[in-house]
């Protein structure tokens, strides 16, 4: 069982989950404010109910007020509604801005780990090629990006100690990022129901000091990096024949395309994100680039999900002009 070597978790009645990332404290702050607001409202209500229940019980002979006049009643209702609306909008603004901060890809050159979910395991690959299953090693003090997809049903990557959750959806690439703070071992769960062994699709996150991580990566990283593997596959599947301009067929150049807008033959523009690149391999006719013929064959059924992810990683690692300097002209 994965949890047997999780010695950092408390046994017995824990009242607070571990905080092991920079966002954990931010999420918890919002959470506890929300809890405080809700508790205040519930206690006010329960207090009033109990007070009225005792004071105005059928048996008590205390004189009854004639009831609240209509005008005052409307004021209480409208005042309550207005007060709550303002409070809720403030909470919404806080929660929404934090959500955008936590969920929007920060951009830049982060340590990017590929995550592929399948029934019922997590397959992970580090930039230096180290592969893991159901265990994720990460360093502290560094932003880590996860590039997540699924090769069968919907799963959800959940690391409670990081307050992080992101669904792994077939056909979509989702990304998530975090910055771990506390070395230790934490749970990694699948949070979206995915079939028989959903509850056993869990593992652990091992947070290490940067030095330890470097050592670990050194030790385990003898395989090719995903980008390097992607480059190899790019040639092996014959992509380079057209896309690097050596062949007779004209195809768009791909160095530095990732993350940039692409003008399409249909007149629209899309950003060449991971999902676009993936679609272009499997459904090449979906977005034909302006000025090119729709001649690329589909690789549907001929290429594995992990291979696609490697090619995407490779393309995303390129900058504009990379191929020119490489080939000397």
């Amino acid at each position, binding site marked *: 069982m994965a*949890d047997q070597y999780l010695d950092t978790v*408390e*046994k*017995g009645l*824990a*009242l*607070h989950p571990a905080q092991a990332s920079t966002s954990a404290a931010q*999420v918890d702050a919002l*959470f506890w404010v*929300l809890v405080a607001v*809700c508790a205040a*409202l*519930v206690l006010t*209500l*329960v207090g009033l*109910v109990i007070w*009225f*229940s005792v004071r*105005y*019980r*059928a048996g008590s002979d205390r004189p*009854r*007020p004639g*009831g*609240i006049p209509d005008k005052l*009643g*409307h004021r*209480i*209702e409208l005042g309550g*509604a207005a007060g*709550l609306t303002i409070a*809720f909008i403030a909470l*919404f603004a*806080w929660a*929404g801005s934090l*959500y*955008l901060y*936590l*969920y929007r890809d920060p951009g830049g050159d982060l340590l990017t780990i590929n995550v592929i979910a399948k029934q019922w395991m997590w397959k992970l690959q580090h930039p230096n090629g180290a592969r893991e299953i159901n265990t994720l090693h990460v360093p502290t003090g560094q932003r880590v990006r996860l590039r997540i997809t699924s090769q*069968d*049903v*919907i799963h*959800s990557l*959940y690391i*409670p100690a990081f*307050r*992080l*959750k992101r*669904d792994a*959806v*077939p*056909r*979509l690439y989702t990304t998530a990022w975090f910055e771990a703070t506390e070395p230790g071992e934490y*749970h990694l769960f699948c949070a*979206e*129901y995915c079939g*028989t062994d*959903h*509850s*056993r699709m869990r593992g652990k996150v091992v947070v290490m000091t940067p030095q330890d991580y470097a050592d670990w990566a050194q030790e385990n990283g003898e395989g090719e990096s995903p980008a390097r593997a992607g480059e190899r596959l790019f040639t092996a599947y014959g992509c380079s024949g057209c896309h690097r301009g050596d062949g007779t067929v004209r195809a768009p150049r791909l160095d530095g395309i990732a993350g940039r807008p692409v003008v399409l033959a249909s007149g629209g523009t899309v950003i060449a994100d991971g999902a676009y690149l993936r679609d272009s391999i499997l459904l090449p006719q979906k977005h034909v680039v302006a000025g090119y013929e729709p001649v690329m064959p589909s690789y549907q059924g001929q290429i594995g999900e992990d291979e696609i992810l490697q090619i995407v990683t490779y393309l995303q690692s390129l900058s504009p002009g990379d191929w020119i300097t490489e080939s000397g002209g």
Partner: protein
Amino acid sequence: MSEPETHYLNDGWTLRSWLLTTDHKRIAWMYFATITAFFFIGGLAALLVRLELLTPAGDMVDSDTYNKLFSAHGIVMVWFFLVPSIPATMGNFLLPLMLGARDLAFPKLNLLSWYIFTLGGLFTMTAVIAGGVDTGWTFYTPYSTLFSNSAVVLAASGVFVVGFSSILTGLNFIVTTHKMRAPGLTWMRLPLFCWANYATSLIMVLATPVLSMALLLIVLERALGIGIFDPELGGDPLLFQHLFWFYSHPAVYIMILPGMGVVSEIITCFARRPIFGYTGMVISIMAIALFGFIVWGHHMFVAGQSLYAGILFSFFTFLVAVPSAIKTLNWTATLYGGRIRFTAPMIYALSFLGLFTIGGLTGVILASLAVDIHLHDTYFVTAHFHYIMVGGMVTAYLGGLHFWWPKITGKLYSGPWSIVAALALFIGFNLTFFPQFLLGFLGMPRRYHAYPEEFQLLHVMSTLGAGVLAVGYLLPMVYFGWSLWRGKPAGDNPWDATGLEWRTTSPPPKHNFVDTPTVTGRPYDYV
């Protein structure tokens, strides 16, 4: 006090006089019988789930069985108990009485609804027996379409069929409310129970068909290979979630609005006060029904939906909480200056008030996007919606049953025992579900058969609470049954309540009223 000579119950004793009846009161009884059966089937599944969760290892049943158990619990409880619960039973029985009508607008359609309901139930029960279904009540694609090896087609067909039952009931209620009101009963004189059922019916008529279509597409995909959600063809798995929640979020309001109606009737009666802010209550009910339709995306904050869609849906979700909060404020204010009697219905109603408030406010916590990243699909969500659906709707259902039982049967039940049952429900419910908030915050995911050890203590507490809760459910069966046999006659109006339903005999005659009643004032004319 004595019973009337003839009433709807002794008007014919044959099986035929029940199965082919078009009397809304008898049809209500048929619903009582069927949904009670479904409630105990769903409850049995829940009990097995809770027993399994006593130990972390997942050793009582195997994973597939566990998955089928929680799926059966969800499907049965949502579509075969909660959605029809108050509307199809008390709504059916009381709406014509409260409106001063002789029956619903379409009595035969009403009977047909029951048969459709039962047919859908048979489909789903066949699915449960023929190997079960393991998709969860949400039927998410592509698991349900391409990967599950269970009886998805049968189960989804059952839910599809039962949808038409709620559509037809809703349609019947809307037309009845528009066309069959007694002389003088204007819209702003309607009891809030009628308003709540009217709003519920609107949701049933307008939301259910979208679910029907989503389920139909799943059935077509599995049975005919029409792969609308197939990712291989470029289908979008999230599209199913959108269509599903377009129904299923409003369905949450199907599962709570009628409860709000019931509680409004009970609190006014036992506080001996008119409802505080009648107009505000009506506006809130209708606002909830409308705004409930544009918040569905809050089920998909971590699903891969666009961040901006998430922001929009979160905003509307915060707003929809306001009318609900106004309603709790108004119920509380109704108590002010009253003469409060603590009968069983009142204890249920006050329990509802507390539990619904907790359920609603934890909904606000879940609507807070950044926090939902952590809490989504954990036990926090499970606890939240059980506070609404069980703490809210089931409590209101039992409260309503205790309130109108004398009217429905003409008999009085045991006062002390009913108070014990109501308290057992409140205590057992909190013991069961409060620990689940903690579990969720600690990171325990939903639908887990086996789980890490550190969650065990809270799971054990929850299971023990479920035992107390079960007592709260079983006890009423006993003293209600006893009252049918040995209960004292109730008289026309044992609670001294207003409302047209109390102006006829208990039990009411076949055509409800000897003379059509007329209404001259506002409802809840207490004091």
